[in-house]
């Protein structure tokens, strides 16, 4: 099945998230208190390696395994980037986890985080419900 490869990439990503302690609530507290370089190092070097990879893909016109041209859709600015970003930041510092780590924490055995994940799904659903009324 063609989605198995995505499951495998997710699995490897989940292992890295746990092994680097990125899913730790304590690491996020440390990051927002500017008392350690760890999280900044992880995110910064991830961005750098991803950026170089994308430049190489574009420069040498590397195709996907199905011989397709790699397409990265452009993001257009809307004020949700700001308002939503601030709201997510508030939540991130409380839960100590963004969506990826929420999944990894559940796998790690913190079953109570399934409640956090369900609540995040509810938050996403509520956004869909009131989207038209929000400034964008």
């Amino acid at each position, binding site marked *: 099945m063609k989605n198995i490869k995505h499951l495998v990439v997710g699995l490897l990503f989940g292992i890295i998230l746990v092994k680097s302690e990125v899913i730790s609530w304590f690491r996020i507290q440390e990051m927002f208190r500017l008392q350690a370089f760890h*999280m900044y190092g992880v995110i910064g070097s991830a961005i750098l390696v*991803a950026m170089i990879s994308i430049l190489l893909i574009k420069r040498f016109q590397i195709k*996907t395994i199905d011989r397709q041209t790699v397409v990265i859709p452009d993001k257009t600015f809307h004020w949700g980037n700001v308002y939503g970003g601030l709201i997510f930041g508030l939540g991130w510092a409380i839960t100590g986890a963004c969506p990826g780590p929420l999944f990894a924490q559940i796998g790690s055995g913190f079953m109570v985080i399934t409640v956090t994940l369900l609540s995040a799904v509810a938050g996403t659903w509520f956004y869909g419900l009131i989207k038209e009324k929000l400034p964008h």
Partner: protein
Amino acid sequence: MEYIKQPWPWYIAGPLIGLVVPALLLLGNKTFGISSSLRHICAACIPANINFFKYDWKKESWNLFFALGIILGGFIATDLLSVPGNVHINPATANLLRQQGVKDFTGLLPKDIFSFTQLFTLRGFVFIVVGGFLVGFGTRYAGGCTSGHAIMGISSLQWPSLVATCCFMIGGFIMTWLILPFLLQL
């Protein structure tokens, strides 16, 4: 093997996370992002005739497989590739959190906040339920999270993602410095 079982330093983990971006692009032209999975779950399970959830989520189901993989990876890393122990955070952070009311430092998360017994206390409810709601609402409103905006967006030179990432950090600083000390006392 002993080396793998120790926590990995940032200069190993960060570049590996960065490689997820070209891996997804080259395996199937997919852009790295996780918060979309929450939207797909809504579209699949509770669309409720809301326009935002009227789309063919099955076309995006790779994202749900990716998320499922993260759960499995979390399980494997914790049960097979780790030795139990404290997270070695800066002692200054630990002392501060101790003063603010955190007692358990034995795992990745403080169990005196994140557990089923705490869920029905005011503090537990705020950290487990309200926090999750803000994460789900905020990421969708912002159009992405740390993976979709901070890593995928910035690395592909999209300035709206840089704006969003700065706002993630500002929101986090406001919470950590101004509000969290009170929430921890609840």
